């Protein structure tokens, strides 16, 4: 019986039995051959040939070397991306089903020793599942990190394409190598995480700037407010421009901002009540 239980558990974890959902269809091209065809771009001979070339030949060589390296990095990145997806999905599904199946068997199978053996096996699998759940954070955050990786790769690829459209005197092979290294690093988990941290930092700063730009006050309309309103809008509705300028000049002279909304804040908030009294006095209202 113990052998039978071992066999069943093995079946659940075997590739033939577990349901592994792949993240992408198989590539129709032979990636090994294609990768081999880019190998020349990593040889010293190619760089030497570029260095000794002149004119349009030099530019053609630069572009060939850079395009081949981009393709090589793309192939490796695709493999990495597929590994990331299949690893998380496949292992998790297999373990879940094994746990459910053995729990069911424990409930319906006859002998006490058999139940004990099944129960022990189930405990072992749940323990393994617990260990796998520690990867939950990585599995759940991987899509966000990968999205950032794609975002950064696209950005660097644009720099490379723009560079390759320039003359070799403006964008040489070694400058392209520097961008290619950025391109490679953008396709790594650490590169993606760094990108997210930078984006979050920039967003935080933008939000902080917005918050610091909010002018907030508590409502208070007093006698000085009423005098300033009558001076600003003598008829009750329309603004008297010269009086408005007088208020703004006074506000400027007293180190207050005078942009749109500033007069309303000045007139209607408790924070400016003392200054309003001074304004009324200074403007002889």
């Amino acid at each position, binding site marked *: 019986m113990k052998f039978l239980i071992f066999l069943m558990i093995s079946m659940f974890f075997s590739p033939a039995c577990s349901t592994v959902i792949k993240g992408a269809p198989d590539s129709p091209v032979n990636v090994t051959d294609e990768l081999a065809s880019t190998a020349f771009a990593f040889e010293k001979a190619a760089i030497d040939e570029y260095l000794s070339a002149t004119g349009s030949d030099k530019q053609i060589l630069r572009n060939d070397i850079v395009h081949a390296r981009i393709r090589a990095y793309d192939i490796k990145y695709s493999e990495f991306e597929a590994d990331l997806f299949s690893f998380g999905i496949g292992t998790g599904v297999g373990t879940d089903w094994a746990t459910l199946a053995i729990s069911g068997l424990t409930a319906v199978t006859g002998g006490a020793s058999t139940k004990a053996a099944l129960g022990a096996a189930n405990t072992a699998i749940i323990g393994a599942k617990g260990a796998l759940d520690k990867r939950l954070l990585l599995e759940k955050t991987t899509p966000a990190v990968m999205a950032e990786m794609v975002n950064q790769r696209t950005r660097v690829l644009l720099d490379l394409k723009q560079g390759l459209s320039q003359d070799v005197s403006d964008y040489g092979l070694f400058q392209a190598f520097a961008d290619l290294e950025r391109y490679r690093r953008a396709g790594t988990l650490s590169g993606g995480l760094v990108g997210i941290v930078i984006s979050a930092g920039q967003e935080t700063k933008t939000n902080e700037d917005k918050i610091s730009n909010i*002018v907030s006050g508590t409502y208070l309309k007093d006698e000085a407010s009423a005098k300033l309103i009558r001076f600003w809008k003598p008829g009750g509705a329309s603004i008297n421009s010269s009086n408005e300028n007088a208020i703004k000049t006074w506000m400027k002279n007293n180190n207050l901002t005078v942009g749109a*909304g500033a007069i309303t804040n000045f007139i*209607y908030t408790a924070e400016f009540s003392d200054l309003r009294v001074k304004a009324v006095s200074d403007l002889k209202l």
Partner: protein
Amino acid sequence: MKSTHEITDISTEAKADEIVQSYTSEGCVAVKEQQLNGKWTVRAECPPTEV
């Protein structure tokens, strides 16, 4: 950058309307909203602020 202004704890809706009108006359886009305590807040988004 546009600036955001808000005046809180306005006792009545009529007074909130007066402030909306005041912000609007300064070229801002203003809205009023009632607070949970029944008082009113007016928020305005205004063109870039001079110093």
